[in-house]
């Protein structure tokens, strides 16, 4: 390929890919949030106030309080590894139907001044009963 042609393509390519890269960078900086464990959130405390974040945890058994006017649910989540560490959560909508005691939840929201997670989005995973059934099957193979 002639050098002049090559130069044209390199300049064009740099512009197009450069623009896309800038777009991605801008989008990431403006819209990223950390995925934290409950223990991280509790440990970091006031550092996180007002910043959007995502948390994974398990619903503490017996902590669920459902309200209908206004529609919301209050509960506590505990750390997946350390059951002693908990975080209060408020979710102002009807929770998914898989939401109950000991469900694993994935929450997105903002920590307010009182240290309560004001959740905008909640995803629950199917209860752990489905997962525990299948573990290492090395014993099975030795049969």
């Amino acid at each position, binding site marked *: *390929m*002639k050098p002049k*042609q090559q130069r*044209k*393509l390199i300049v*064009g*390519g740099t512009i*197009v*890919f450069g623009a*896309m890269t800038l*777009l*991605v960078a*801008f*989008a*990431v900086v*403006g*819209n*990223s*949030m*950390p*995925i*934290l464990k409950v223990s991280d959130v509790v440990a970091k405390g006031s550092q996180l106030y007002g910043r959007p974040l*995502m948390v*994974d945890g398990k619903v503490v058994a017996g902590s669920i309080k459902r309200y*209908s006017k206004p*529609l919301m649910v209050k509960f506590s989540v505990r750390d997946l590894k350390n059951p002693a560490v908990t975080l209060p959560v408020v979710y102002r909508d*009807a929770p998914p*139907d*898989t939401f109950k005691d000991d469900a694993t939840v*994935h929450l*997105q929201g903002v920590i307010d001044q009182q240290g309560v997670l004001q959740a905008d989005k909640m*995803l629950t*995973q*199917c*209860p752990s*009963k*489905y*997962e*525990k*059934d*299948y*573990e*290492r*099957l*090395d*014993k*099975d*193979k030795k*049969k």
Partner: protein
Amino acid sequence: MAADLGRFSILFALLCAAYTLVAGIYAGRAKDRLRQEQWWQSARRGLLAVFLLCALAIGVLIHAFVTHNYNITYVWSESNRGMPVQYKVSAVWGGQDGSLLLWVFVLSCYGALMVWRPQPTVRSIMPYTAAVMAITQVFFLLLVNFTANPFRVGPPHGLEGMKWPPPDGRGLNPLLQNYWMQLHPPALYIGYVGLTVPFCYGMAALMSGKLDSDWIIAVRRWTLFAWTFLGCGILLGGIWAYETLSFGGYWAWDPVENASLIPWLTGTAFLHSVMIQEKKGMLKGWNMVLVIITFALSIFGTFLTRSGIIQSVHAFAQSGIGPYFWTFLLLMIILGFGFLFLRGWYVSAGLVTLFTFGLFIIHTFGRLKTGIHPPAPDTPNAPLPPEGAEYLLLAVSFAVAGAMAYVVSSELIGIFKNDGKPRYNALQGDNEFESWLSREAAFLVNNWLFVGAAFAVLFGTMLPNLTEALWGAKITVAGPYFNVVMPPIGLALLFLTGVGPLIPWRRASPKNLWRNFRLPAAVAGASLPLLWLMGVRQDAYIGPIPISFSLIVLATCVFVTATIVWEFYRGAKARHALTGESYFAALINLTLRNRRRYGGYIVHFAVALFFAGVTGSMMYKVEVRKDLHPGDTLRIAGYELKLNKVAIERVPGWKESLVAHVDVALKGRKLLTLKPRQDTFEGFGRDMQQTPIPAILYTPQHDLYLVLRQVANPNNLKSTSIHLQVYLFPMVLWVWVSGVIFLIGNFVCMLPGAKELRAPERVTVKGWVMER
């Protein structure tokens, strides 16, 4: 007995695939024509055998599901007696093991079809095509045989005390018990897996050095077919989400969704880019790169979905399958770019190969340290690999390193002997790039944009893993990131959709551009105030994309549609003038005689419709929620919804539904009764898993979407109140309609021409019958 038959068939399939690999390579390298033919025929039969055995295996599994064979662990874990029979069949691919077997089966179908009657022009590279197909089959068959065997018998681990065989199955996840589950995975797999075929041909061309356009032409329909099904599969997933998940969305930029989109994007680039190689002999290197990365991304996509490295609502339960995928993926990338290096792209392909090899070594030594086992004690599934599997990986690494060293040094020696000039430059373009205002340039920029979009999505999807690997903290992005990145790139691509087919080759003069584009541009410009009048303006607006941007997108959709309509009009008019047939007949014949071109236009129209539908559906939504007793009404945007009654519907042994009968009236006239409901399923549902299923009224302007959120008093249905959530989503139907038009357009593109339907010529050489 059934389990034994199943196990035997997949094991023997693995052996046949391994044999085919050897036979294919031997045939490819044979210098003697007769020997080549004999070994090619043998390799061909190998792939046919793999197909028959895989068909047997999946037949056995389906039969096991339908006849309640709960002796087989997988059948127990994914179904129960009460399920309707069609869901027993689709439950086959409800879990990891069965879905991998489905993948293997679809792959074996493609393998058999690929070698059944290959095109004469590519006959000489077929042995390598079979070999590369065989490598892929060997990998997936290894997985199915040794890490995710659907024919395993006995209680699952953790439940050893269970009575076996159990009288009834555990049941299937309620979200999978609908007809979308029957359509979406098979369609998606036909697409995903089908992308292997172009890769096989491309690799064969690289390996044999036969780098002219024959493979491109031979592979066109395969690529189109797979790409169409992948696209439709993705849309089917969207409809499924829309109709089942009751959040009113059809796309959430979930990692698993993205995993299917990314190879589709690079596949689109490939599909277009090959036209330039066919017509002008340019972009040869690009096409190789695109075919390799499309295949690699499809493997990566399925790896993302199955390995549990990404958090997703879709993901299968975590398993230890990850390391195997990494190994295969990295090795295939090394293979692809390694051959690209050998065929003349020394610097770029050489760097990619080295980098990938570096990743491979890191991966291997990482596994040596941690061993190949499931990630954490409380994650389930998958048997452990055999003891010392890591050492096998190490051996493979050394073998690959040795092969690479040999190849690179012999190549360097070859260059040295050739006075410092590379031995091959078969990837050199035949023509030159002359001007930015040309079709060649449009297609090149098209490539750039699609690849950029694919990597932007990939980056957004993998960000948590990247940041964790680099800094130990997981940072993620969600919908908003994609809503910033994708629309501008999408708009640029949409613009090219209108411009590309009409812009001249080599160099377009301003006069030429004016003549070609003045009418569509004028129509698009005129549509702007019209759209504003129709309601695309600030006061009606709530969506995440700026209103001015939505306006521009919609105007561009009009632009694209105008170019297409004009092309059809001009073509039909010319035909009418030439042959005297009616305009309608002229239109049909025009399309049928130029299937690729006009079929392509139909697909492009579908794309414009899709963009319009997506933009429209993001512009606003209306939501009303109310507690209703029977007899109460709810008003939304001119509709009047009256709760008639709440009833129970039971299918014994399968599910129980609470159904709200809501009468829908518009301007006083009753339209229909919508029945949003909550389903509780047996087996799985013993934990009281209620799944709300929305009821939807589809109209061209908007959808009326009802969700039964809560039944306050399920024991007293005559007087209970319900919490009803009602949405109005604009223009969603356009998205689904565009999918149908997309399918039709691609079907037109794929229709065979009269020339191709002629039977191939047969010749006899030394007693062997061969096809010319």
